[in-house]
């Protein structure tokens, strides 16, 4: 159990750092979506399924959609 949680936290950290350093903004958005998804799984492990559901539906789905719409309106690559 502790191994799975540590692995998930490590993946979450890698995804967060990847979201910071990507020059391609679409990839950065997908990486931050992954942070939200792993956070939802961790909330579920912490016995908070209500919060996990809110995090998965808002953090992973809606916020990602808003960012993708914003990228479509502006530029995809950071200078």
């Amino acid at each position, binding site marked *: 159990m502790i191994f799975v949680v540590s692995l998930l936290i490590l993946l979450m950290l890698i995804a967060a750092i990847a979201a910071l350093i990507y020059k391609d903004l679409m990839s950065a958005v997908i990486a931050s979506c992954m942070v939200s998804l792993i956070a939802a799984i961790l909330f579920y492990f912490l016995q908070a*399924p*209500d919060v*996990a*559901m*809110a995090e998965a*539906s*808002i953090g992973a*789905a*809606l916020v990602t*959609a*808003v960012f*993708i*719409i*914003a990228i*479509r*309106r502006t530029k995809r690559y950071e200078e």
Partner: protein
Amino acid sequence: MRSIISLLLLLVVAWGIALSLDEIPFGTSKTKVGNYYIEKGREETGASNIVTSVVVNYRGFDTLGEVTVLFVAAIGLSAVLATRRKKEKREIEPASLVLYTGCRFLFPLILLFGAYIFIHGHLTPGGGFQGGAIVASAFVLVYLGCRGRRVSETGSKTVESLGGLVFIVVGLVGLAVGGHYFLSNYLPKGELNTLFSAGVIPIIYIAIGFKVGSELAGVIDHLVEESE
């Protein structure tokens, strides 16, 4: 020089946060009110999901504030974006057949799942806010996948207003009839763990689900319209 100063500031802030986190006893139950909710929540509200009994019943007034915050945010966004509305219809490139069919197939299933979440809010994890967000994500799928399809704005505004109105009216009736506080549970509580139980809680959560779903879908709709 500036980076050194900012690093020092960061260290000071981190030290403060670490000190205050050290003071909080994680994992122990210290508050009386939390224990009270866990012990008495089921029999007092009739909801087997304790989180729901806190959100809708004990802290119903806070939930009204939460719903109002979301409402104000949606109104503000539509006020900012509606002024730059372009009326002419541009030709939209249609999505591929696989994407279009997949979206059309998944849309009712996601809607059904969201409705399940907010109708069963008093029995299983989840509730009006989560279910509403899932309903809104179904609309996001349609907006991004099957482009050119729109929900009528009047319809979504009507659903949103009706949801808010039901919440406030049920709460005020509770203030007048049931007890001396907003959203008191005046309907019969019924049998624990059945769908028709917990008095006003399912009604409130269905209203919140419709309201949050139409609000978030409206926000996405405005953004998509602006980006085309």
